[in-house]
């Protein structure tokens, strides 16, 4: 496939690795923010081919993983109601809540449907006027344009039986929280290429200056990731805390302005709790007041205070901040597997634990 195959070229991958080895002179810790990149790195084995000076740590960019337990429990409570059709991205249905997951709600007779696009959830609402369709609107800035458009479409079609349960988070706030944490040590970031496709990278420029860290916008294929890595190592070695774009075929500095306008029309910034990490100020989106009729939390006020219970064995919060590798968790591959996960990082196709499990990384490095 065009724009895919040439970025998986094994020869070019080896040459980029050689160039990184030649360039690096000191130890550097580099974090890839996005869980999609984590999977690509582990799947292609890049983590095992980098020179020993480079420590690669995996970041919090797994939307399913950081969706707070309280909201997962709310989703489960709402999905269990007989008048509700609950629609969700596929990754979310296996994420453990305090007691069970959305999948088990379906097994118990609840109407839980997996959709690829939020517009499918709007269509389900149109076809089922006697039901209330609730869409679990989670994600980073990449899904925000789609989720916002679903709300606008529901309004345009005059649908009164569509609502969204919103759990939206943003990458710059996460980078700020990581850099402010005394425990986290990161010398440079690979920024998430598709988040920047939407938002651009101008908002990273003040972060690079304030924290004196290079931030390199990076794509998802092996050649893209090594290009981002090489760019980051060159900046680190020359002491330059700058933002660079190593994914220029998709990302422009200003991002997708039309998508940003719709995000701003539907959502506003708010404090958000991140599962395993805690509340990060002004780190996500909520619906603006004028869209309150589409807010599932307001439509189901009885589903409010839920006592949450996190597995005491799960260290996903440390994994999400790059403080522990998945295979350093005592429960990894034992009590916790993708078939029987203790935490969301073992479920999601973007979770670091799932990547380590799936591609067989166990104490190899």
């Amino acid at each position, binding site marked *: 496939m065009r724009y895919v195959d040439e970025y998986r070229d094994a020869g070019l991958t080896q040459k980029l690795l050689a160039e990184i080895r*030649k360039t690096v002179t000191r130890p550097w810790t580099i974090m890839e923010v996005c869980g999609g990149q984590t999977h690509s790195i582990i799947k292609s084995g890049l983590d095992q081919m980098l020179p020993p000076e480079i420590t690669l740590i995996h970041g919090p960019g797994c939307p399913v993983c950081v969706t707070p337990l309280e909201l997962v429990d709310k989703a489960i409570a709402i999905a269990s109601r007989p008048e509700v059709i609950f629609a969700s991205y596929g990754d979310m249905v296996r994420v453990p809540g305090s007691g069970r997951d959305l999948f088990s709600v379906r097994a118990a007779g609840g109407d839980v449907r997996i959709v690829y696009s939020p*517009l499918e959830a709007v269509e389900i609402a149109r076809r089922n006027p006697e039901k209330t369709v609730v869409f679990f609107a989670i994600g980073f800035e*990449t899904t925000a344009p*789609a989720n916002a458009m679903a709300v606008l479409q529901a309004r345009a079609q005059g649908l009164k039986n569509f609502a969204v349960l919103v759990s939206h988070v943003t990458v710059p706030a996460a980078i700020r929280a990581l850099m402010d944490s005394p425990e986290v040590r990161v010398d440079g970031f690979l920024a998430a290429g598709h988040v920047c496709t939407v938002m651009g990278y101008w908002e990273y420029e003040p972060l690079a200056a304030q924290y004196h860290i290079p931030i390199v916008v990076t794509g998802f294929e092996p050649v893209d990731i090594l290009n981002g890595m090489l760019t980051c190592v060159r900046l680190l070695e020359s002491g330059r805390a700058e933002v660079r774009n*190593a994914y220029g*075929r*998709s990302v422009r500095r200003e991002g997708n302005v039309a998508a940003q306008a719709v995000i701003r029309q539907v959502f506003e910034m708010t404090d958000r709790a991140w599962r395993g990490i805690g509340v990060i100020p002004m780190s996500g989106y909520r619906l603006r007041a004028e869209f309150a009729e589409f807010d599932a939390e307001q439509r189901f006020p009885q589903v409010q205070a839920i006592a949450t219970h996190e597995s005491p064995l799960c260290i996903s919060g440390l994994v999400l901040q790059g403080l522990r590798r998945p295979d350093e968790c005592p429960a990894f591959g034992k009590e916790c597997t993708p078939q029987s996960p203790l935490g969301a990082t073992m479920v999601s196709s973007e979770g670091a634990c799932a990547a380590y499990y799936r591609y067989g990384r166990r104490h190899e490095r």
Partner: protein
Amino acid sequence: MCLGIPGKIIELYEANGMKMAKVDFGGVIQEVCMEYLPEARVGDYTIVHVGFGLSILDEQEAAETMELLRQVEAMAEEAGS
């Protein structure tokens, strides 16, 4: 969830007042909302994410970057590594 996939636009149309496209992902055709890419044309490659086109891939930029990367390759070979 952030793994957008590149596909080729083969048809543009409207539905429910929204710009839509049929996009070819290596033989699999999907319907994609193009509201965020008003400049899209048939034949363009687009990054698609949960059913929405988010960018048009810049062919010239891609070619220039690939050329630069291949120069890295040449330099690495000259250095004997």
